[in-house]
C-alpha cells in the first residue's frame, strides 16, 4: 500500500515528505501490522481507512489543532513510524543475516495528565512509571504523543515523536541492541524480570544507528535546533566528544556518555570510508561486534559489567572484522577509546595526556 512518510534528506528538518510503498496490513482503526513490526496508536479513534494510507502530517497536529488535522497527523505518525521502524529492522536483519524478533510500537500510551515528547524501549519487568499495558516479551517501543512545538521553527510544528524519524530509529536501535549486544544481559534474566535500563553503549549505539539511517551526525537537529551544536544536549556526533567527557557511575548521563561512543563510531566509519572501505562492511562489523558482545554466558552481574566497558565493545568490533581493525583502532584512539582498560581508566588516560579541558 501507499503511505506518506518523511524520507531522510540530510537536512535539519524531519525529512522530505514523500509517498512510499509499505508492506503492511491494517488490522484495526489505528493499527498496522508489518512482518517486522506492529504499530498502534493507543489513543483510539478511526485513523486508518481506504486502500492507500497517504495522510497529511498536518504540522504535527497536537492539542491546538482542529480535530481533522489531529486525525491526519496521528494517522501520518502511524505510517511514518511504521516505515522507519521497518527500514531500520530490515537493515539490521540484512547485516545480521537473520531477522530480529517482532517489535511492537505503541504511540500515545503515556500521555495523561502530563505530556511526553520522547520515546523509550521497554521489556517486561519493573518500570518507573509502571507501564499501562503488559509489555511484549520481545520488546516494545513507546512513543509519546508530543509535548511541545518545535522551537525556532519558522512555522509552528507540533513535535509528535512518531513524526520524527530520528526518535523512531533511536528506539528501534535499542531493540537491535537488546537482541545483539544485550547490554543488560536480559537473555539470562527471567522473561518477566527484564531490565529496561540503558547504559552508555546502548544509547550510543542507538544514536549511531540513527545517524547511519538518517545520513547525518546531527541526529536531533530538527527538534533540538534551538540547542547549540556544541552543547551535549544536542547529541550531535562530533570529534570533540572523547572519554575525557565521560561521567562514570552516573546512570543519569547515559545519553551524554553514549554520545562519546556514537561519535567514535562515526569517526571510525568516516576513517574506513576515507581509506577506501565501504559503509556496508563497517556496518556489518558493528552488528557482528554487538552480537559477539552479547554472545557469551556468565553470571549476570559480571557479564553486565563487561558489556558496560567501551574497551570490550571495541575488542568485539576488531574481532568482527580484523581487516578494518587498524582504521577503527586509530579513530577510536582519537576519542580516548582503547582495547584495554575500564571506562574510568580510559578517562584518566586521556585526561592525563591531553591539554586540560573543561569537563563537567
Amino acid at each position, binding site marked *: 500500500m501507499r503511505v506518506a512518510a518523511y524520507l531522510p534528506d540530510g537536512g535539519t528538518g524531519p525529512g522530505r515528505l514523500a509517498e512510499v510503498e509499505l508492506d503492511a496490513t491494517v488490522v484495526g482503526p489505528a493499527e498496522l501490522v508489518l512482518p517486522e513490526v506492529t504499530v498502534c496508536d493507543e489513543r483510539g479513534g478511526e485513523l486508518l481507512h481506504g486502500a492507500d494510507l497517504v495522510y497529511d502530517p498536518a504540522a504535527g497536529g497536537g492539542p491546538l489543532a482542529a480535530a481533522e488535522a489531529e486525525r491526519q497527523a496521528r494517522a501520518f505518525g502511524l505510517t511514518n513510524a511504521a516505515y522507519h521502524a521497518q527500514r531500520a529492522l530490515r537493515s539490521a536483519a540484512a547485516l545480521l543475516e537473520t531477522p530480529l524478533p517482532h517489535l511492537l510500537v505503541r504511540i500515545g500510551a503515556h500521555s495523561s495528565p*502530563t505530556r511526553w515528547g520522547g520515546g523509550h524501549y521497554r521489556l517486561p519487568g519493573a518500570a518507573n512509571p509502571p507501564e499501562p499495558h503488559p509489555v511484549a516479551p520481545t520488546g516494545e517501543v513507546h512513543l509519546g504523543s508530543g*509535548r511541545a512545538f518545535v*522551537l525556532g521553527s519558522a512555522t509552528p510544528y507540533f513535535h509528535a515523536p512518531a513524526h520524527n524519524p530520528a526518535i523512531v530509529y533511536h528506539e528501534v536501535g535499542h531493540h537491535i541492541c537488546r537482541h545483539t549486544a544485550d547490554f543488560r544481559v536480559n537473555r539470562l534474566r527471567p522473561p518477566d524480570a527484564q531490565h529496561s535500563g540503558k547504559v552508555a553503549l546502548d544509547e550510543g549505539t542507538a544514536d549511531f544507528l540513527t545517524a547511519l539511517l538518517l545520513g547525518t551526525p546531527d541526529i536531533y537537529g530538527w527538534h533540538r535546533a534551538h540547542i547549540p551544536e556544541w552543547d551535549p544536549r544536542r547529541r550531535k556526533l562530533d570529534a570533540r566528544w572523547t572519554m575525557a567527557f565521560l561521567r562514570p557511575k552516573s546512570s543519569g548521563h547515559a545519553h551524554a556518555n553514549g554520545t562519546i561512543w556514537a561519535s567514535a563510531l562515526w569517526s571510525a566509519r568516516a576513517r574506513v570510508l576515507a581509506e577506501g572501505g565501504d559503509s556496508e562492511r563497517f556496518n556489518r562489523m558493528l552488528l557482528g561486534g554487538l552480537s559477539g558482545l552479547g554472545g557469551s554466558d556468565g553470571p549476570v552481574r559480571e557479564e553486565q559489567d563487561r558489556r558496560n566497558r567501551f574497551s570490550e565493545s571495541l575488542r568485539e568490533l576488531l574481532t568482527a572484522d580484523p581487516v578494518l581493525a587498524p582504521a577503527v583502532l586509530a579513530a577510536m584512539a582519537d576519542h580516548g577509546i582503547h582495547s584495554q582498560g575500564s571506562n574510568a581508566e580510559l578517562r584518566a588516560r586521556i585526561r592525563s595526556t591531553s591539554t586540560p579541558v573543561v569537563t563537567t
Partner: protein
Amino acid sequence: MGGHERLEDAHGRGVRLHKGDLVVGACGNRYATDFYEGYHRPGPRAHLLTAGGVIGTAVSWHTSCLAPTELEIVGALTNEDNLPLSLEHFARPRPAAASAELPEPGAGAHAIAVVGSSMNSGKTTTAAGLISGWARAGLVAGAAKVTGSGSGKDRWTYIDAGAAHVVDFLDFGMSSTFGYPTDRLRSTMIAMRDTLVHDGANAIVLEIADGLLQDETRLLTASLSAVCHGTVLAVGDALAARAGVDLLRSTGVPVLAVSGLVTASPLAAREAAAVTGLPVLSPAQLAEGAALDLLADHALAQ
C-alpha cells in the same frame, strides 16, 4: 516598624527598612483577608500596606499579622507644575483594537483566567504552572495580574515561570484595584489581554486576585465568558472546589480544571475531582504538559 520590614526598590529587590528612612510609595487601598484591610485616607500619617509601596491606612488585619509599619507623610511627589504625580500619568496606552471580542480558540491567542476561592488558595502558583507548561511547549506565554495591590512578587513569579510578556494593573495606572469601579477594571482586563496579544503572546493567563466572593472579583468573573476561553479554579479544599465551580458555572464561563493548594493532598484532590467532575491538576502537572491540553478545543468546549 511593623509588618513590613522591607520595601521593593525600582528593580524589585526587597530593601530592608530602618527607622527614619525616606521612602516613596503610591496611595491606594488594600483588600487582603490574610493581611491588611486598608484605605487611602489623606493625612499626616499612614501605613505601609504592601511590600511594593502601597500607602494607606490599615483598619483591620489578620490575627497572624503584625501591626502595619507606620509612615509619616512628608509630602507628595510633584511634576514641574507642582501637581501631584499619579500612576495614571505613566499608564500604558491601551491597544487601539481593545475590544471585548474573544479570539477564536485555535485561531490565534488563547486566554485562560485563574480565579480562586480565597486569598492564598494557590492562584499565582497555578498561573505559574500554566505559564511554565505553555513556555515549555514552545508557546509565547503572557501573564496579566488583573487585580490586587501593587507589589512585584507575582510579576517576578510569572517571569520566572517563563512568561515572555507580563502586565498588571500598575501598568494601567492603578496602585491597587480595590475600590475602583467595575467598568474600569473590566475594560482594563480586556486591555491587558489585548496588550499581551499585541506584544506577541499566544497563550495568556489572566489572574484575578482574592476570592470569588470579593466584590470586584465577583463582578469581574461575571464577564469572563466574553474575555477568556475558560477558567482554572484554585482552591484549598474540596468544599471550596464545589462551591467555586458552581459559582463560575452560573456565570457561563467554562471551568477547565481545579488546581491550587488542594492538589497538595492526593486525598483532597480526589474529593475535589469527585464533587466537581473536573480534572484536578497540580501546578507541576500543568507545567509538565497539562497546561497545553487545557487549550485544546475539546477542553475549551466543556
